């Protein structure tokens, strides 16, 4: 049915695919994968707040709404590990802390989660990257990690 070159085409295509799939599976349990988990919804997620678990562990309950994040400024010390829980009170919003690869969608009735460690001081910008109405381009926030130093 197939000649030499056709077989070549098929086999190389399949090899390329296997390479892709291998890389995907290989990196599954590596650090920083952070694919949002599927967390059952309850109303407590609809209240924006920061909770300190211990000196270096925080939980941020982030609420996105037209057109602000709540809380929109989060102060934490260097070296903290932060669980972000994200939901929306109205339309779909985005949540991106680009330098940390935290990248979630805020969906009404859903709770996204991503965990990340802040090793370096600085101001990390949070940008809403899903169109959410006329104020979308103003919707942003900040994670402030020991900055300025004395805070």
């Amino acid at each position, binding site marked *: *049915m197939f*000649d030499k*070159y*056709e077989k*070549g*085409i*098929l086999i190389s*295509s*399949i090899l*390329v*695919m296997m390479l*892709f*799939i291998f*890389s*995907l599976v290989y*990196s*599954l349990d*590596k650090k*920083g*994968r*952070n*694919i*949002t*988990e*599927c967390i059952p*919804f309850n109303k407590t997620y609809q209240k924006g707040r920061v909770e300190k678990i211990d000196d270096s562990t925080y939980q941020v309950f982030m609420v996105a*709404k*037209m*057109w602000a994040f709540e809380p929109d400024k989060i102060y934490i010390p260097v070296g903290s590990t932060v669980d972000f829980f*994200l*939901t929306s009170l*109205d*339309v*779909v919003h*985005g949540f*991106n802390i*680009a330098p940390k*690869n*935290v*990248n*979630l*969608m805020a*969906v*009404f*009735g*859903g709770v*996204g*989660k991503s965990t990340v460690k802040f090793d370096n001081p600085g101001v990390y*910008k949070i*940008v*809403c*990257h*899903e*169109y959410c*109405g*006329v104020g*979308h*381009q*103003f919707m*942003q926030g900040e994670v402030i990690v020991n900055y300025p130093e004395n805070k």
Partner: protein
Amino acid sequence: MEISRSLKRIIIIELFVPVSLLTIGIYHGLMQTIYRAGFLHQAGALKLDYYQGLTLHGVINAVVLTTFFAVAFGHATITHYLKREPDILIARISMCLMIIGTLMAAWAMLSGKASVLYTFYPPLKAHPLFYLGAALLIVGSWLPFFNWAKMYRQWKKENAEVKTPLAVIGTLVNFTIWFVCTLAVAYEVLVLLIPWSMGWTKTIDVTLSRTLFWFFGHALVYFWLLPAYIMFYTMLPKLAGGKLYSDLAGRIAFFSFLVLSIPVGVHHQFADPGITRGVKMFQGLLTFGIAIPSFMTAFNLAASLEYAGVQRGSKGLFGWIKKLPFLDPNRYLFAYMICGLILFIFGGLTGIPNASYQLNNVIHNTAFLPGHFHMTVAGPVFLAIIGMSTFLISQLKGKKIFWPKINVVIPYLWMIGVLIFSSGLMWGGLIGEPRRTNLGLSYLNPQSPLFRPDWVPTTMLALAGGIIMFVAGMLYFVVFFGTLIRKKTEVALLDLPESETYHVEKRVPIFDKFKPWLVIMVVVLLLAYVPALWGINNNNAPKALPYKVDNPMPDTTNTLNK
């Protein structure tokens, strides 16, 4: 062959309508790059708001143009290869439905009542006519498919032992994918969105709507792509002066698309809550199955082009590249296709991070994404569409190409523009620049506290590319409309270039039948989507009230009473 006046007219109208609308789409494409580069610090210009324009850009370029073209090109291919014409009444009804639907949606968008972007994610609410228009466009595009399928069965009865022409397989595969995937979006629109936007139902399940949308949305990209693939397989080798290396590999590729195009939509929702990691992972893996037909196509076409170069007397390992008819005004379709393919190399490669479960986190919803898909949908797809539209108009009207020498450089200009434009966007995306954002009002406004100087070079680069694309787009309009209104000098006919195949293969029955492939398609689809929908159904997530784009309070008034 000679074709009837009525069919000719239908094909021409189905090209004319979307290309006319495309002028708005291209205009606002340029505007988007201008706002984004921070040259406009305002919400809108010339009565068109940024997001209203972006909605028009997405809907016209990516849905209206592609759907009309797929139907028009489908009529042409089926007629050409089966040597018989589709039922004119059905074709007419289909055309009218598509035009009425498009006009409804266009009215809603232009009057600012539907600035919800082409993905219309609830709970952002648009005017009901926007949704209804979209539904009519889709239903209109189904009708010819049923007719072609009937013609094919008839043809098959008469030619049981003859291999079905590859272009016919491609067209039927494409519309099967389209029919199945649009069932989901038709359900979303007709059952969930329209009653909700009319105020008859109060709330809507957002995750369910998004999942139904992406059931459709990923397959949509293959619906864009397959007409271009049909041209690459059945015309490109001929235009290059060679033969298609393997017809059988082409068939395998098309049937693989049939199986794998739909059950991967969740890869657009890796960042969504409400869908389990298991479902995401499974569909993520399936996505890479698409690597098989894609790489097969790449190898097959490269081999065909090499053969063409050798036929034209090339020497050495890569000498064949120099022998291809890049700038031959009489074979301008070659130029459109080769530029599309070059863009597609980059478009395909930059799609890999999007599809990769983990890597997606780096670039999801950033400017990287439009950077990537302007090298696919605004690359091979768009170039194949505009090249073929000029070709069909010129043949069906019996008119010579207007500005033939310009016509053949348009694709090169477009390609260079897109490469620069996409580099800018992708670079921006890697440093966090968001997509779907009027950057000029905030992040690219030096007066704003949100100003981001690091996004100046990236958006400038995108603007530079955008200007080149815009110029190429304008030249295309001159060629297309110039050809259309020219004096008729030739015999009007329909005669698509037909590649021979290098290997004369026997008919392999399994690759010449739809049934087994349809069964596999359904099985994989159920495996992928039953768990996803089951999970969403069992989430018991609360449902959302409707919101208008300009008001943070829910809007529950009945839209039609206002």
